[in-house]
């Protein structure tokens, strides 16, 4: 009887979907997605550089506002080895490409066309957009939704 109870408890624990949110200290996950240029890109390959992984979608208004800031930040710090990887959750690739052009995005763009159900979104634990994840040069997650100053500090630290 007691064993049954323990078993039930264990089962119910297994049934609770583990919040797959990346925690600070986690490594850049190995996840390959297709870039806007049609190339396969593995997120883990950015290890070695301060990298911001930014989740967005063309239809997400606040994301498009954030894109403008990221474009500026990237053009200012790319020479210091700073990288941004935009992960779009757009299901409509044409709209994604249009948005890249319109927002004049020069950093790496990949597409995971399944909205919040996308594997990348689930791996990172994205529940709201925009959502960004800052990894240090050793590939460890150091902040979720960092401020611009936090990003700049990290870039300067890596010099």
């Amino acid at each position, binding site marked *: 009887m007691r064993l049954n109870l323990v078993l039930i408890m264990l089962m119910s624990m297994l049934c609770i979907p583990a919040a797959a949110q990346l925690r600070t200290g986690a490594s850049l996950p190995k996840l390959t997605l297709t870039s806007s240029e049609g190339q396969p890109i593995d997120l883990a390959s950015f290890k070695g550089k301060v990298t911001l992984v930014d989740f967005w979608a063309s239809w997400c208004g606040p*994301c498009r506002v954030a894109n403008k800031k990221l474009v500026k930040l990237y053009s200012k710090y790319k020479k210091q080895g700073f990288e941004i990887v935009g992960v779009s959750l757009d299901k409509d690739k044409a709209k994604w490409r249009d948005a890249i052009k319109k927002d004049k995005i020069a950093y790496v763009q990949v597409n995971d066309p399944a909205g919040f159900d996308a594997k990348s979104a689930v791996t990172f634990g994205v529940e709201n957009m925009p959502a960004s994840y800052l990894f240090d040069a050793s590939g460890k997650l150091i902040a979720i939704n960092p401020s611009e100053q936090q990003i700049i500090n990290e870039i300067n630290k890596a010099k």
Partner: protein
Amino acid sequence: MKTIYQLLLLTFAVFLPSASAYGQIQKAEIVATGLTCSMCSNAINKQLKSIDGVEKVETDLNTSTFTVILTPYNTITPATLKNSVEKAGFFVGSMVITLSLDQVVPKDNAAVEAQGATLVFVDSKEKVLNGQTRLKIQDKGYVTQKEYKKLQKSYSKYPTYSVENEGDFHVKVI
């Protein structure tokens, strides 16, 4: 004579659940509002999907509409859906329900019973309803605040509207 008529109407309206027709809600189209972009959050989707009787939730990004498909014989009322949107931290800006009706004449103040909720017709054109019918809920909490203020004035002719009874929904055929 007129007062007697009004009195009769009021009595009828107060004892509303004398609905003779029944319907089953099959679908609901919800537009959520809030301080942030409702489509940019996964919360509403998750809340709606967790309701017993919800088969699936589709999102239309162009119209910011959540379409909730319900299972046959579900017991979901508009209030269940509204509560779930509010639990996710948003408000309902509009809710249109689809139900199958059989030869219902939507006279003003006439009612249809649906899963225990009473649907009262307003702004009706008295055209016989048959088959799939879309009804827009006009009550407080189901329209924007601004809309509600307007409706409060124009719907003063419907005695049950201002009562804000939780189980009564005032619906307009669309």
